[in-house]
């Protein structure tokens, strides 16, 4: 880029730095919260509040005991810098007051909540009419409204909050909860196992193809409340489901801790497609505030020919620590990971995936696009492991980073462990800035610089964007564009 363009880009970065988070607002709803702090009583409080069976309380307490032993095991290996988190300072349960008498229909929903959704652009009334999207909206920790349930129920598909699933389908929950991410998995997942409040539960029975995209909007609301979602999706033999997860959060000054766990199980011939658009509050230009996002996401292809596909567009959060993984146990099973991570200002993202090839002829594909601007740091960290029995396994990894401005950082830390000679593992990574040739080509044809850069970056992300379901692709492209508006030309 010429000096002039550089200056223009700089100016644009500056102008974006001054931009306020568009979705920052606080809904004033009276919350029914647990006192701040975390001990066995907090867990009993949460469990009692949700009317849980004894086995689940026991499981939570077991996790809590393990978590106490993990004091020194809070992960420090990621390329992330943040002050120590005081886990006793957070509030571990907060439910909208109206929880005790749940609304039977949208008319009964707290109008304040509905207005929140309207501001977010997801008016529930209209949602039902939108292209077949059922919404299980999570406001803070408790599901408030679920739509399309009847339609799904006809096909035997269960789509509800996990608290409801514990009550209505305890056998399924007890069988699968913790089967992919055990309660002792890692520091944050163990904390989640002890204190999770709500999340989604999906079960798709044998041979059923879920006719619509299932969607949940998470939203963090009450001040100082960590969010500990727990999502469990089971696709029985030969079934298919596509699940959408999207998030925005109101503006906050204090860092909010978020430690979710997502578990996916795909049995023989089943397929799960899990898409995320994450746009939580990233903090201000100086890195003040913003969400700490420590997420454990893992899918197990338990059966032969199963497939799990993760697609994520990560634009928000002050800190992202997230490695959606696939355990490819079944022969011929397939794992995919498509990711766009955009960081700006002082954001830090350490994200990637793990592909563990256990079964024969398992295949995995990783496409990661990192875009760093401002003073941010974006790290791809991934593991591809070929176990000795994974004959004929195949992996291809492509990690590309784009740097916008001279004060950001982009890092690639792949781990490749191959223990089977018939497996083929390929990894490619590149880091560059926007190609001057491409920019010149566009500008020469009369496209102004901002559009040209948008075009190029859209092209850069294309492989990932095209993996998103239609409904999400629009929002995702908008998010990418917003980030671009601010960052260049």
């Amino acid at each position, binding site marked *: 880029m010429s000096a002039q363009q550089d200056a223009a880009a700089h100016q644009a970065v500056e102008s974006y730095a001054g931009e306020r988070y568009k979705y920052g607002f606080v809904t004033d709803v009276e919350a029914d919260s647990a006192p701040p702090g975390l001990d066995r009583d907090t867990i009993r409080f949460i469990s009692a509040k949700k009317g849980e069976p004894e086995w689940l309380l026991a499981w939570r307490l077991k996790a809590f005991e393990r978590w106490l032993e993990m004091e020194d095991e809070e992960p420090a*290996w990621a390329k992330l810098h943040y002050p120590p988190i005081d886990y006793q300072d957070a509030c571990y349960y907060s439910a909208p007051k109206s929880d005790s008498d749940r609304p039977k229909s949208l008319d009964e929903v707290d109008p304040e909540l509905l207005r929140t959704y309207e501001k977010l652009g997801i008016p529930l009334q209209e949602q039902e009419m939108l292209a077949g999207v059922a919404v299980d909206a999570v406001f803070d920790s408790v599901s408030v409204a679920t739509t399309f349930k009847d339609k799904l129920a006809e096909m035997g598909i269960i789509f509800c909050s996990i608290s409801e699933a514990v009550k209505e389908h305890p056998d399924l929950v007890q069988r699968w909860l913790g089967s992919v991410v055990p309660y002792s998995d890692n520091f944050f997942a163990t904390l989640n196992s002890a204190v999770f409040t709500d999340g989604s539960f999906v079960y798709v029975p044998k041979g059923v193809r879920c006719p619509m995209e299932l969607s949940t909007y998470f939203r963090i609301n009450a001040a100082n409340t960590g969010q500990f979602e727990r999502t469990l999706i089971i696709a029985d033999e030969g079934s298919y489901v596509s699940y959408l997860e999207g998030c925005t959060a109101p503006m906050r000054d204090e860092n909010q801790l978020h430690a979710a766990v997502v578990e996916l199980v795909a049995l023989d011939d089943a397929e799960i497609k899990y898409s995320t658009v994450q746009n939580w509050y990233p903090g201000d230009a100086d890195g003040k505030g913003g969400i700490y996002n420590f997420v454990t996401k893992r899918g197990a292809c338990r059966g032969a020919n199963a497939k799990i596909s993760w697609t994520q567009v990560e634009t928000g959060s002050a800190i992202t620590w997230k490695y959606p993984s696939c355990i490819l146990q079944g022969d011929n099973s397939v794992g995919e990971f498509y990711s766009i991570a955009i960081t700006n200002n002082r954001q830090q993202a350490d994200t990637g995936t793990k592909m563990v090839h256990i079964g024969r002829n398992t295949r995995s594909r990783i496409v990661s696009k990192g875009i760093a601007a401002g003073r941010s740091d974006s790290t791809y960290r991934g593991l591809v492991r070929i176990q*000795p029995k994974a004959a004929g396994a195949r992996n291809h990894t492509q990690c590309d*980073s784009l*740097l*916008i*401005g*001279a*004060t*950001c*950082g*982009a*890092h*690639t*830390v*792949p*781990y*490749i*462990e*191959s*223990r*089977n*000679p*018939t*497996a*083929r*593992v*390929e*990894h*490619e*990574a*590149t*880091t*560059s*800035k926007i190609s001057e040739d491409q920019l010149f080509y566009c500008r020469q044809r009369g496209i102004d610089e901002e559009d040209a850069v948008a075009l190029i970056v859209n092209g850069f992300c294309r492989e990932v964007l095209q993996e998103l379901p239609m409904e999400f692709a629009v929002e995702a492209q908008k998010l990418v564009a917003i980030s671009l508006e601010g960052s260049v030309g």
Partner: protein
Amino acid sequence: MPAPRTIPFDYPAPKAGAAAALPGAGLPWLDALRAEGRQLSADGLPGTRMEAWKYTSLAPLAALAFPPPGEPVAEAEPGAGAFDTIGGPALAFVNGRLDARHSRLDTLPAGLRVRGLAQALSDDPAQVEGLIGDTVPNGDPMAAFNAAFAADGCIVETAPGAVVDEPLRLRFAAAPGSGPLAWHPRVVVRLGAGSRLALIESHEGLAGEATWSNPLVDVGIGAGAALSHVKLQAEGAGAYHTALTRTALAADARYESHLLALGARLARHEIHIRFDGEGARCLLHGGYMARGSQHVDNTTVIDHRVPHCESREVYKGVLDDTARGVFQGRIVVHRDAQKTDGHQLNRTLLLSPKAEIDTKPELEIYADDVKCSHGATAGEPEADQLFYLRSRGLDLRTARALIVEGFMNELLEAVGHEGARAVLLAQVAAWIGEARP
């Protein structure tokens, strides 16, 4: 129970009298350096919980008992060296000590100065302090052992502008029947501005005894100077080799490293490159071939601190039986190191169902106007290639051998010195020839 960060290692301290036998004993700066190294090494060997040692466990080394450093070493016969045919100036270290009988320093080419560490310390301690006094092991555990216990080594210098035609050979040999022995050679190489040198370093030994070689090679290349560094590591089946080569490049300097690692029970070759001046270039070629239960680790860090430097790195290896290979390559581009051009590639052929490769190519980039990439592949020889050869009448064994040879030779063709290249190619061919049918 998580693995410990360090492995306790009962490495003996020099005996009271023997400490004085280490060269330069009594020099305050050297005593202080050694004390610091001893203090750091007292923590033990790095454990697999240290990220840099994640895939290489030194536990079997820690189980060995070595005699205290500084003990006199008996003269022994090292046998013929791989590069003897090349001729020219040579330094030989047998069981860790400079062996004048097998060295050839009488006819040094003009502009080349070579001294043993002990001699240099007695001749001109102040100059040696300038060369090794500031090499505080900055947290590197193996360099700490070297700083504490280096009993011998050498200092190689070229005069500014000197173009040295004949390569200088440094040979480290384990003599048969030597018993458990450890050595920590310290090699310092300084190239004056605009000078040129080829260095051939070899670590050889047929002995089955447990030996531990822990060399620290410290290279400084002056402005516009060029060093071609060939290293052959072909030690015996009981040997441990943990080498650190640190190279700093001034403006427009050039460094070429050609490594062929064949031997030892466990070998780790760590290379750190630091660009201090603009316009410098480095080429790192590494080949590794391991079989049986050998473990070979290549760890490189390329530190782009200044703009307009170029690094090229290709590591290729072949692993058979239950051998395990490790490649960790990191490229760091600092904030102001614009226009950096860095490429890295690691390719491994796995010949057996039990062989394992662990690869970690890493990019850490803080500047935007750079071109950096890395690639890694692992797998067995391509079915297409085998089919092509077999369809022309070659049996499976010959076809595989040909593919392996071609795979490795591609890398060694870049060795500039004809004689050295021929030796390395012959070593590869011999390795393949030893394969069991």
